[in-house]
């Protein structure tokens, strides 16, 4: 029993210490005046973690939209309410599925790559050599990736949502014969810019920040061995995915739950 309590206490202390190190990393990386070079480095990272995630995001969006269109139609048609397919697809995608699924995919695709890249840079002493050349790796390596993640995530989520709605319309309108005018006009009248679209974008900015923060921290804090990098990469995907789902609940409650 005492051993159990001791282990629990040690784990708690360890978790607080990890959270503290993550906060210090964040603070030291981004609290400073940005230079032109930072913008260029962020632009390079936008390509590697944003543009290169486009394919998986677009393809997943298309299929999720198509499935939603199909499932929505089969349920709605029973009540003769298939004209509401447009709002159903759009609201579920823009409010929830777009930001959440895009962030989960982003954590798997870009988050794991960031952790592995930074972890390997640590293991091969590239970060240490940068330090010894009087170049701060937190500014040179971590900050551009963090900013790129925060910028890329809402863009990727928007693209995911657009492609998914398109997928829903292909199935609903083109294959199952829902009226095209009704599909799009009811969507237009139901989806509110501030309430739905903007809230979805805010969610994806928050997810982008947390996923990238977890990914760069796990890479920077890794034990520099092959086993350590493998564990950190897994931790990135697991912790980022759980963080996305927990934050989604929190944000949904704040935005739509009318609990505050």
């Amino acid at each position, binding site marked *: 029993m005492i051993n159990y309590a001791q282990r629990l206490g040690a784990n708690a202390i360890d978790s607080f210490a990890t959270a503290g190190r993550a906060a210090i990393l964040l603070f030291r990386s981004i609290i400073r005046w940005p230079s032109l070079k930072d913008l260029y480095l962020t632009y390079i990272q936008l390509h590697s973690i944003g543009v290169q995630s486009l394919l998986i995001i677009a393809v997943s969006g298309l299929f999720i939209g198509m499935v939603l269109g199909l499932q929505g139609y089969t349920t709605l048609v029973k009540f003769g309410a298939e004209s509401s397919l447009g709002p159903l697809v759009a609201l579920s995608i823009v409010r929830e599925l777009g930001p959440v699924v895009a962030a989960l995919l982003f954590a798997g695709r870009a988050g794991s790559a960031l952790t592995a890249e930074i972890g390997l840079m640590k293991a091969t*002493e590239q970060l*240490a050599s940068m330090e010894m*050349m009087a170049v701060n790796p937190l500014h040179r390596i971590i900050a551009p990736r963090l900013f790129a993640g925060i910028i890329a995530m809402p863009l990727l989520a928007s693209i995911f949502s657009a492609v998914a709605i398109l997928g829903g319309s292909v199935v609903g309108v083109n294959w199952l014969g829902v009226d095209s005018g009704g599909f799009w006009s009811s969507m237009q009248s139901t989806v509110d810019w501030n309430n739905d679209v903007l809230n979805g974008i805010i969610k994806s900015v928050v997810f982008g920040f947390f996923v990238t923060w977890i990914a760069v921290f796990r890479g920077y804090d890794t034990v520099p061995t092959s086993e350590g990098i493998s564990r950190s990469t897994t931790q990135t995907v697991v912790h980022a995915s759980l963080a996305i789902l927990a934050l989604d609940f929190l944000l949904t409650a704040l935005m739509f739950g009318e609990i505050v």
Partner: protein
Amino acid sequence: MSETNLLKIENLTYYRGDRAIFDGLDLTISEGKITAIMGPSGTGKTTLLKLIGGQLFPDKGRILFHGQDIHKLSQDDLYEARRKMGMLFQSGALFTDMSVYENVAFPLREHTDLPENIIRTMVLLKLQAVGLRGAKDLQPSELSGGMSRRVALARAIALDPHMIMYDEPFAGQDPISMGVLMKLIATLNKALGLSSIVVSHDVAEVTSIADYCYVLSNGRVMAEGTPDELNNNDSEQTSQFLKGNPDGPVKFHFPALDYAEDLMESVK
């Protein structure tokens, strides 16, 4: 040693967990000289370089570089001091996403606003010094271990530092690469007026180029002197290390139970 001191280590104590890596270490690095720091594996030679570079903090004692306590400097001042130090990592630590040329240009791009044509000239000069101007367009993955270290050396001297620290420069090198690296360390030290710290356990190679040597053991200096003085050192432990005898004060066997007793345990 009457020369000017570039680096002075005083009473350095550093623990990793409960184990003392250094326990009151004192040593001095003179300006313009090649100083060798030798010792068996696990004596903390690389750790010492990281302490000198300010990447690790000592538990006690201080390291003075140009008279400044490295571990009491602000981050900006520490980075300023590091610009005067170059370090050659054992693995080379080249940036794998950059070509040889870009690797050498990296510190120049980061710390200067020089126009591209000047940077190109400087990179070619540094690469020529290590004999790899022709490899400027190669990627690090296309280089052999010895070539990687030479490129890393070109990168380390890009900002014309006052001191270079070499971490096991000869480890795992074939005789030709070893010869090339030895020649480079000696030539660069003389031509650029550098001070060099060579951490190594390749005794013959390092003593052939060093002006002064320290042998570390159990967290302290076991022996010191010029290579000739060391060769004449009559301490058993120093002599065992320098001659590479498998048994002596440093035992061949790791501490264990009595052999016969241990074997009898299997029978029981």
